[in-house]
């Protein structure tokens, strides 16, 4: 599939550029990531700030914030996901077309953050949907979001078109929709999606 690196660099020195279909595809994808216009809480303001003049998200080809999930590639979960909001987040994620990526922005989206003890706060959006990049911080600075973007771009660049380790959207068996939790009498039902998230291990003696 891929050509020898040495040959490729030799060719490029002679003015002949070679690429693979995979490389071309990933190059196009990573430079045109369209995020979903999706602000939940405080982090959304920093997300807006990142798209404004000083930080200028447009440099990464990602300034086109789409209000509709049908046109978006990337969901930036910017802020606290409450239990009341979690079904909506999962539904919006399901409604996005493949390939789709998720950035969990801020401590709340990762784990509940400072509001972790809250009865209505989801302890991390990765309980229901797969997250590609986590950004710590409360809220993360716009630079952190830019860094997350570049991390995501590297991740997209490394995606395989075929083979057993190919990206999820190339795999016919991998799910594209994830179960949406229901409102229960005391809590969301189920409280987590076992296929996506298991509780982290506890070491003996702690």
């Amino acid at each position, binding site marked *: 599939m891929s050509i020898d690196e040495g040959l490729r660099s030799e060719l490029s020195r002679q003015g002949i550029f070679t690429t693979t279909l995979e490389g071309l595809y990933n190059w196009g994808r990573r430079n045109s990531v369209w995020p979903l216009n999706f602000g939940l809480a405080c982090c959304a303001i920093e997300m807006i700030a990142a798209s404004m003049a000083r930080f200028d998200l447009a440099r990464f080809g990602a300034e086109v914030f789409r209000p509709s999930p049908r046109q978006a590639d990337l969901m930036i979960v910017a802020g606290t996901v409450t239990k009341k909001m979690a079904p909506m987040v999962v539904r919006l994620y399901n409604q996005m077309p493949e390939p789709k990526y998720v950035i969990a922005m801020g401590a709340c989206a990762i784990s509940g953050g400072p509001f972790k003890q809250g009865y209505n706060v989801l302890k991390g959006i990765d309980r229901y949907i797969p997250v590609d990049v986590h950004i710590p911080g409360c809220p993360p600075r716009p630079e952190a979001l830019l860094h997350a973007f570049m991390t995501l771009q590297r991740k997209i660049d490394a995606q395989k078109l075929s083979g057993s380790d190919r990206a999820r959207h190339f795999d016919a068996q991998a799910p594209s929709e994830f179960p949406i939790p229901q*409102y229960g*009498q005391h809590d969301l039902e189920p409280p987590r999606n076992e296929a996506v998230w298991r509780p982290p*291990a*506890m*070491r003996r003696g702690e």
Partner: protein
Amino acid sequence: MSPLDQVVARIGAAIPGARVQILPNDSPSGQHSLLVDHEHAVAVAKFLRDDPDLQLDHLANVTGVDWLDATVKEKAKVRKVINGAEKEVEETLERKKPGFLEAVYHLYSIARNHGPVILRLRTGNRIDQVRVPSLTPIWRGAEFQEREIYDLYGIVFDGHPDLRRILMWDEFQDHPMRKDYVEPDDYEYEPTAHDKVLEKAKKHHTAADRPQL
């Protein structure tokens, strides 16, 4: 504004039968409050709003408070016969104080620029006598706040135009701001600054549940 006892006297004069009681507040803020009975609460509120001297037209804040059942320890001097001689002895008596829910209204006047006058409405207990009259017909600003108290504390406001849950979803059954509310037990373990969270996490992750290292 005239002192609170004069306000109470004027309420008594204007609304016969109204039982209004001053609850003192010991803190430096000195914001004392008025406990109003259920039957006359709406009339008292209307009087406070419309009285030309008071004109409390701005309802700043409506709050619920949950007071749990408590045992109050009181020291009392009791005469007792000890060793044949009658003596006065100090003893601590325990008295059960039944809990209740409380709705607190903070009133200010925009027209006359004074305040706050604080009204309190109390329910009979925390379980079945949880109804108080709604003051939304007098001050529209109470609408969402009373809904919130209904949602989080479970006080039912009689006469509220649209009493539904506001913050939690409709299927939710508990009243989470009550002091004895038990949260859903779904914490994962991680080092955290909150000891209570840690306790819960340890309880939650039984050996079977735990993925093997």
